């Protein structure tokens, strides 16, 4: 690891020569700008708006690498996850080894703006508490050194250079005002890469409330920051920002999105439970609630069924082993599963179809469709019949299909139902033409014959004779009709 880091330092130092051009800087101008910068930094001290961080993350002279290493230490001490060696020593040694060029590269500090740990706050605390200023006195650089560093580009030039892929120091933009001018320039350039770079810098050097406040009136920059936070997964910061902006629905969705990253179902369920109270739109709220309830059910069903399957007691599970777990499946799939394995259960059982139907207010149409598919797959034609039969208050029974009988026929046919079963439903298709089509297609001769008889269509009926088997009951039937 330290090897890599050394390489890294080396890169920065050597890269400087490529990154900056020497010849296009006017000496007097740079002096002027230097003094202006001094004034600016004075203003900086007066202005409480600026974050403490700002004062340490200056760069430009060898000592800069100390402030560098301090940060590294700070992050190292807050976390051992990082796996980095304590870097004070390393930092100073690398400084010793490379005394001259040490820090003119300032974009490096831009890159490390983000601390991966949630302890962002504690990092900056640690920095300000330790009185960093003492470690990092503002030394005057040797003139020659200074020249190539201080290419004192205006915000506009800085942005333009960055657009051309050149490295540029942002550290010299110290006052809030300068930073905002820089940001506005970047936005005016429309180059997302540069806008993001500036935002990373601002995010690191401005206090949150100030950053948020300023971004609120800079919508383009704001969008870029939101996108950036989403990409890098800085969920907490993002949520803070959205909350500040009062974009409550986005906060809710953004938080909800997180559940996709949780693999453990129990944890996911807990997480979803927490999402229910979030400020979704009215419509979405009920969906989120359903999502939670569904997963809760699935966990119960899964535990139960896995047990059943393992025990090998249930014939159903032995005959039709489950292809996959039911966890995280959509509602309709769950209903199908329940109609397949738990059809006969009473409504009181969580795994029963009736219970699912009631809990999730599944419309009749959807329910019949799903149940039909499940029962047909098991070739439980009796259940199919019962599903489509309704009793009126006089006790008469009647066949009814909210999805239309042509769909019933399709589903049954797909599950290779025998002709006897099929034709019972083909007969119930209301539209005559559809009925004839289906009956002909699936060879429900009875239905075809009867339909032509009712239509009194002798010609078609005669023609149909060649489609039925010679000497069969069907042929006889046609003959007897034709003779009448």
């Amino acid at each position, binding site marked *: *690891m330290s*090897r*890599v*880091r*050394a390489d*890294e*330092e*080396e*890169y*920065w130092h050597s890269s400087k020569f490529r990154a900056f051009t020497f010849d296009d800087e006017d000496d007097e101008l740079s002096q002027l700008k230097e003094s202006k910068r001094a004034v600016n930094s004075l203003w900086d001290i007066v202005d409480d708006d600026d974050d403490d961080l700002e004062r340490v993350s200056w760069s430009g002279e060898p000592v800069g690498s100390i402030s560098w290493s301090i940060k590294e230490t700070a992050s190292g001490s807050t976390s051992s996850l990082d796996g980095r060696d304590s870097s004070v020593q390393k930092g100073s040694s690398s400084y010793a080894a490379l005394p001259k060029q040490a820090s003119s590269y300032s974009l490096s500090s*831009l*890159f*490390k*703006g*983000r601390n*991966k740990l949630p302890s962002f706050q504690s990092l900056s605390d640690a920095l300000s508490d330790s009185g960093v200023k003492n470690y990092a006195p503002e030394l005057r650089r040797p003139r020659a050194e200074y020249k190539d560093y201080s290419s004192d580009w205006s915000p506009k030039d800085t942005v*333009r250079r*960055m657009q051309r*892929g050149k490295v540029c120091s942002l550290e010299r933009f110290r006052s809030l005002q300068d930073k905002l001018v820089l940001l506005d320039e970047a936005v*005016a*350039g*429309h*180059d*997302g*890469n*540069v806008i*993001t*770079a500036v935002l*990373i810098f601002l995010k690191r050097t401005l206090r949150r409330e100030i950053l948020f406040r300023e971004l609120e009136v800079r*919508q*383009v920059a704001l*969008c*870029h920051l*939101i*996108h*950036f936070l989403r*990409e*890098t997964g800085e969920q907490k910061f993002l949520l803070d920002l959205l909350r500040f902006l009062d974009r409550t629905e986005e906060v809710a*969705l953004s938080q*909800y*999105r997180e*559940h*996709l*990253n949780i*693999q453990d179902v129990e944890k996911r369920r807990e997480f979803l439970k927490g999402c229910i109270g979030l400020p979704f739109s009215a*419509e*979405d709220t009920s*969906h*989120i609630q*359903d999502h939670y309830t569904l997963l809760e059910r699935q966990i119960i069903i899964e535990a139960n069924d896995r047990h059943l399957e393992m025990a090998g007691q249930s014939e159903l599970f032995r005959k039709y082993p489950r292809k996959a777990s039911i966890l995280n*499946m*959509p*509602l*309709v799939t769950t209903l199908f599963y329940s109609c397949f394995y738990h059809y006969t259960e009473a409504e009181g059982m969580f795994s029963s179809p009736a219970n699912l139907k009631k809990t*999730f207010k599944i419309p009749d*149409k*959807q329910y019949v*469709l799903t149940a039909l598919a499940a029962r047909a797959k098991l070739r439980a034609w009796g259940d199919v019949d019962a599903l489509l039969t309704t009793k009126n208050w006089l006790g008469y029974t009647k066949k009814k299909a909210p*999805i239309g009988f042509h*769909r019933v026929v399709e589903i049954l046919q797909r599950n290779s139902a025998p002709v006897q079963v099929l034709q019972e439903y083909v007969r119930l298709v209301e539209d005559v033409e559809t009925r004839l089509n289906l009956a002909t297609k699936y060879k429900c001769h009875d239905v075809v014959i009867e339909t032509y008889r009712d239509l009194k269509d002798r010609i078609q009926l005669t023609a149909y004779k060649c489609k039925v088997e010679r000497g069969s009951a069907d042929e006889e039937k046609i003959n007897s009709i034709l003779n009448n």
Partner: protein
Amino acid sequence: RCPFPQAIVWDEYLTGPFGLIAQYSLLKEHEVEKMFTLKPGRLPPADVKNIIFFVRPKLELMDIITDNVLREDRGRSPQRDFHILFVPRRSLLCEQWLKEQGVLGSFIHREQYSLDLIPFDGDLLSMESESAFKECYLESDQTSLYHAAKGLMTLQALYGTIPQIFGKGDCARHVANMMIRMKREFPGSQNSIFPVFDTLLLLDRNVDLLTPLATQLTYEGLIDEIYGIQNTYVKLPPEKFAPKKQGEGGKDLPTEPKKLQLNSAEELYAEIRDKNFNAVGSVLSKKAKIISAAFEERHHAKTVGEIKQFVSQLPHMQAARSSLANHTSIAELIKDITTSEDFFDNLTVEQEFMSGIDTDKVNNYIEDCIAQKHPLIKILRLVCLQSVCNSGLKQKVLDHYKREILQTYGYEHILTLNNLEKAGLLKPQTGGRNNYPTIRKTLRLWMDDVNEQNPNDISYVYSGYAPLSVRLAQLLARPGWRSIEEVLKMLPGPHFEERQQLPTGLQKKRQHGENRVTLVFFLGGVTYAEIAALRFLSQMEDGGTEYVIATTKLINGTTWIKSLMEKLEPAPF
């Protein structure tokens, strides 16, 4: 650039576009020894000094690179140096990410390869930036517009300043602004090249959300809808391409998909690509007759001279024959699908919506498709189409669709539905007003008497629907947008005109009958059917305008909707 033998590790997505501009042999001349595809794990051994990563600036790719670098055996000798080449641009965000992973320092060089506009055909340029639409309209990230403007500046440096710029939409406005600004900031950009283009038309995709949602019905459009054309290549099921010779080892059918390149360099393809699919069959059979007649010639060749002439034509004839064989097979494959019941039903519903029938209630076919769990993207395309053709759905209808989709495909798709809503594709009707009928009538978007065989209007590309975007281009050329001010106001975003001054010497004096050339830039993507429609306008005898097309990405409804969907699976590592 690197003097030592090198290996390139490719982001697979880039190999397509790069394949269009450089051959492997060319790279080989530049001491490229090996090429790998970017994937997690240890890099394959290769005796090279330099390893160069060619990647798009994407965080998930950075993670893979990090993995590669960290697993590199540090003890090996010679040690390999790493370089990274971002296409089309260096990204500070990505570099920061690499830095956080502690590997940034491992890269000796980090450079960018600016690949703004890639030529796809004689009249077609694309940036192949697949997320441009999403970035512009969902995330308000205008980086791709910046690249578009830069690409246009490069184009102007090569082909002269374009004197007139027209545009419609917010993004168009941005691009025009950036171009003007760039021109001001680089005074040296004033060039002395005689302008090739007379007009630039910038069009926002969100001005016309409808067109990509409909199923394209040109030959090329259908190939793309069904098999997906990527960087001019298409992969097809191999069955229909089985070698005819039964003798040689002919035991089983090839299992590898057949890969074909499709562009206008192929004579036959150039002729049929933009035709309505229903007109392709007759062309193919005519061609077949011509070719077999040509082969018959050999029986009539009597003298040595005649035979020699016949033989000299053979290579060309062979090529024509294999081209014909390929396209006949493709046409057969497509026909299997276009003649299916479901394709027909789907098309019927699309056409009903586009001609304004029953757009305000829940559609039975869509419901059936959901019940049968057809692919979600298909459902979303239809529902969005209905929403666009109704200027938004009634709240009750929208809620119904939403619930059905979530219950059948999973609640997590609520995120995708939200994205579609943000992009304006799926939304509740506001103000209770449906502007679409007015737009449809004024722009003549629906033509009842469409001629697919010998078209006289662009509506042939969708068998009745004339793509709105292309209508705008057509009306701009003649009689001008002033005639449709009212409709332009109904479509989102501003419309505008800018002029770029040319030095007097470069101003064009038009010969009588000479065509004007317009560059149409689609910001957010363009479909093959729209391209076909523009080519059709170019070829019209009294058209007076030729079109060259540029875009951020070649899209179809499926790839487009997909780019807007929330990625639901967590990254594989």
